């Protein structure tokens, strides 16, 4: 089961090949879902890491030691169900079907955080601000 993680890079780490080391030194399978890196500023990368490959714990220790902030993606993306009116406007644009119609008779929405890739499309699409990305 791959883990989706938001990695936050302090400005001084931007010019270091951290991802290279995760792959080369620790043997991790890294799938980059999203990256925003600007020299001199804080950087952010959303990655999917396969738990079966490489020295997982050593890699995490390495990142922590380097000062890379690690947050599980699921904690960073919130579906405020009380604000959701179940209009289904988010369902078409969501590329990974994380937001989907759970029941076609009642036409109700469900959010499957395992599938979310944090593209942020739903945030733009939802008129009721029911979706929130904390790291944005």
């Amino acid at each position, binding site marked *: 089961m791959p883990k989706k993680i938001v990695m936050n890079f302090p400005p001084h780490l931007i010019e270091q090949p951290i991802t290279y080391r995760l792959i080369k030194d620790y043997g991790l399978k890294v799938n980059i879902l999203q990256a925003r890196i600007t020299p001199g500023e804080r950087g952010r990368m959303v990655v999917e890491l396969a738990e079966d490959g490489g020295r997982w714990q050593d890699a995490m220790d390495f990142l922590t030691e380097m000062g890379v902030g690690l947050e599980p993606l699921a904690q960073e993306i919130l579906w405020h169900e009380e604000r959701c009116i*179940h209009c289904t406007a988010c369902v078409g644009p969501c590329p990974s079907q994380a937001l989907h119609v759970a029941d076609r008779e009642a*036409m*109700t929405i469900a959010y499957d955080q395992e599938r979310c890739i944090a593209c942020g499309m739903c945030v*733009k699409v939802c*008129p009721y601000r029911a979706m929130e990305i904390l790291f944005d």
Partner: protein
Amino acid sequence: MAKTIPEINEKIKAGKAVVVTAEEILEIVREKGAKAAAAQVDVVTTGTFAPMCSSGAYFNVGHATPRIKMGGGRVTLNQVPAYAGFAAVDIFLGATALPDDDPRNKVFPGAFVYGGGHVIEDLVAGKDVRLTATAYGTDCYPRKALDTLIRLADMNEAVLFNMRNAYQNYNVAVNLSDRILYTYMGILQPRLRNANYCTAGQLSPLLNDPLYRTIGVGTRIFLGGGIGYVVSQGTQHNPGVRRTDRGLPRMGAATLAVTGDLKQMSSKWLRGASFTGYGVTLTVGLGIPIPVLDEEMLHYVSVSDHDIVGPVVDYSEAYPNGKAEILAEVTVAQLKSGEITVNGKKVTTAGLSSYAKAREIARILKDWILAGRFFLTEPLAPLPGPDSGYTFRPLTERHVPPLWNRG
């Protein structure tokens, strides 16, 4: 056997009325047949919960000491401008109004975080709202400025007044162009990648009384979680459009102007909405009970999503330029399946009107009637019908002569 509205109201009073939702009636007709259903069922309840831009509210905020004449001055509620061209302290706030300093679409697409619809939601939720006014000052109204917090309960009157709600059927929006479109029908991806629709389908009030036999001036309704009334046909009422064999319009047709006391409404059923790149609006909950007077009315209320067709319209070219081009006709059942076919291409669908909430409204209205808290009304006057000749015309622009209107 035919029933009258007074007879149905007697049954409601006696706790003997049979009331079902526009969804439940389908099952009853399937099981018992139309004749038995018409005899058994007295009322069918409908509902819709969708963005409705021609909504707003008027307020009498009370007189300050010393007095101020807001009429002819400027008024804002949480920085959103309200219209003040009335007597001293009567104002009207529209759902799509924006603060003067909102960046709008200067950086495209704009976010439109807060506007008139949100102010109405906040007021109904009981929150404090900041009221500011500037005025020119008169002998009887000397004050020139006001800045205060106010809440709904402090106001004398607070009345929702929507000049166009509950559109009978609506376009399905797609985008044939190569660029992304930000519309009131949501975000439309280029080259026909998605289709957005906005109808409660088989639960929709005016699709359950397609020829306006029972809905008319004065009809009592569920509005924003409280009780409201139909004022008249709404703006852009257009009953003369092409119809199906069941009398259902094949495109947007009738509309309703509605009103109700905002103080008894709920922020659950009046929600501010922000459309990226387009603006703000108010999502309104509205439900209408339809009396099953006879078999003809039973036939109308047994409309299903399979019977309702809507036009697929290109919002990159046809809609902005007012062209009556239709790419396809699709049923609500197809739209709700999640996929339709347009120009031979499979297109993902998404809604803007909440079917789940429409269902809830129909159930609430049913419960009110069953509890004897809500009675049906006879229309005081009919809405203009399909053969009335009443139509919706475009604006014809005319040349303005130089020095026009300068005395």
